[in-house]
């Protein structure tokens, strides 16, 4: 095991996969210079400018070119910088990447990894803070991953690159500097579709992912101080998502909170809540609760931005209301 940051973990994963498979390459603005967050540092030196391709500001074509490149046998890792800019490439993502295999009757596959960092981070405001994972979960064809730890960023990025499906890969900008351990050797992947119980508990389940994992951990600690034992399920994969793990946990705790940073309304939490309510409604001690951002664009001023975050206190209030 080595201790690395979330950012370094992804850089290592990409380098390992590029060494392993010469058809893996990456493209995006400034990636040759290490990328806007430094998550591509050193890659051009090792792999050269044809495999670490700095591009013009042409999101539609970054994505569209990756589709063509994936169709003919390479594995592009697309860097879109901020999930918000992905909106400039939405046709290429949704109408092309996600649908090509199906609408061409399986004649082709589009093994492309689409990195688009999400989340609130240092007053990034309305156009640089969105978390739109639920859009992609709604879209047939996509695998959707949202790692919350360095180890998962490492292992899931590797799985994403090896996956034959187009993968939406959402890192959280606020996690870049979070440290954690990753396995040595570079051959360990994290399986797509498997959740992880990152804290076992008995009284209540929190299902969460990405940056909100940190909030959940703090809330669980606070709850423990009040005698409430919280189990945290970090989904990591949003599509497919690990229903079994969630059902199992809720079967035990009979209380579920879904916690995410994205807007609550029509967030992926709605899918989890609706599914659990539908499937095991009669075994729930109390209805499933959701916590997410209010339905407002993200404001700039730090105290206003903070109001869009789910805070530990919000989780605690909800836990109390659920009568644990």
């Amino acid at each position: 095991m080595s201790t690395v940051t979330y950012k370094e973990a992804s850089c290592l994963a990409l380098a390992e996969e590029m060494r392993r498979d010469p058809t893996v390459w990456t493209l995006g603005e400034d990636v040759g210079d290490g990328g806007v967050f430094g998550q591509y540092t050193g890659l051009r030196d090792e792999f050269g400018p044809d495999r670490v391709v700095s591009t013009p500001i042409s999101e539609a074509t970054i994505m569209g070119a990756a589709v063509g490149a994936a169709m003919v046998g390479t594995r592009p890792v697309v860097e879109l910088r901020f999930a918000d800019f992905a909106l400039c490439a939405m046709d290429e993502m949704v109408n092309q990447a996600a649908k090509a295999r199906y609408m061409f009757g399986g004649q082709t596959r589009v093994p492309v990894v689409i990195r688009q960092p999400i989340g609130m981070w240092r007053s990034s405001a309305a156009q640089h803070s969105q978390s739109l994972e639920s859009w992609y979960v709604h879209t047939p064809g996509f695998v959707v991953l949202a790692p919350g730890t360095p180890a998962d960023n490492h292992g899931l990025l590797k799985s994403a690159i090896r996956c034959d499906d187009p993968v939406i890969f959402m890192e959280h900008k606020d996690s870049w500097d979070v440290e954690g351990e990753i396995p040595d050797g570079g051959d360990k992947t994290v399986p797509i579709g498997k959740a992880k119980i990152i804290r076992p508990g008995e009284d209540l389940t929190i299902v969460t992912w990405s940056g909100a994992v940190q909030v959940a951990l703090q809330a669980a600690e606070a709850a423990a101080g009040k005698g409430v034992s919280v189990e945290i399920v970090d989904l990591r994969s949003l599509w497919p998502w690990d229903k079994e793990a969630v059902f199992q946990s809720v079967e035990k705790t009979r209380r579920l909170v879904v916690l995410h940073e994205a807007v609550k309304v029509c967030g992926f939490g709605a899918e989890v809540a609706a599914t659990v309510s539908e499937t095991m409604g009669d075994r729930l001690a109390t209805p499933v609760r959701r916590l997410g951002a209010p339905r407002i664009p993200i404001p700039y001023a730090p105290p206003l931005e903070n109001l869009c975050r789910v805070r530990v206190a919000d989780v605690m209030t909800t836990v109390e209301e659920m009568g644990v």
Partner: protein
Amino acid sequence: MSTSSPPETGGPTVSAQRVRALFATMCRIRAFEEAAERAAKEGLITGAAHLSIGQEATAAGVCGNLRTSDLITSTHRGHGHTIAKGASADAMMRELFGRAGGTSDGKGGSMHIADFSVGMLGANGIVAAGIPIAAGAAQAKRLLGEDAVVACFFGDGAVNRGPFLEGLNWARIYDLPVLFVCEDNRYAARTRTGAMTGGPGPAARAESLGVPAHPIDGNDVMAVDALAGQLVEEMRAGGGPQFIHAKTYRQKGHTVADPGTWRPAEEIAQFLEHDPMTIARQFLIDAGAGPADLDAIVADAQQEMADAYDSAAAAPWPDDGLAATDVQDIGGPA
């Protein structure tokens, strides 16, 4: 056609034998689409179908210079490109009918006609979407160390969408062997593109992006063949992107459902006279071909497509189970 030899070099003269082959391809495209038109009118084609009748020379002339290992991207109006690149007309017709044995199992239809086995990377329901895809395919082929030229077809309406600029710029800065082919049939759906296109037009735009542009009569298959042959040769020798502005005409309406009669009658008449089939036929006659020989080519094509029609009409629907296949490997359709 897709494996035919490169054109004569040294001048615009092309051999009659070569033109005969191009003519045959054009006849097959025309006959395919006439059969498709009939089928649509009879309710056998349920989705939208866009006919390229009148535009066959571009498809034939460009694809006649490509190898099977070369690639093309296409548009909503893609039957001609697909046939010219070497796809099976029978499988294509089944696809239009939405039947088993279609190129895409009946899951795509006319607007998503494709045959990856012959390097046809797909028609596209989104105007201009094929442009970045073509650029990326060329870039990937180079990365893989495989030689391939990519021909990218699009209409005169597509030059007003952002991906046109982005994709041509991309091909230029990475110096990719992409042959951009703008089939300018004067209209985008019901709108005259002249009124919607600022400046001197598609060729000037390409040039401004560093892509050398070549205007040409897109209905003259000899001219298209000679030009495409030369450009493809340059690209095989390591040259960067090239642009053909092929002036042509859509003899039919926008879709099979549109009679297209809202256009000026004189304009339609003028272009019916300047039909690519007539031009190629005249060339062959002048070069000594017998009318009966040419009629036989036409008849063969018509027979092939009548058979394709019958085969498609008799084919079963795709198996229900196919609805849920080829969505993705990981994560079921539930």
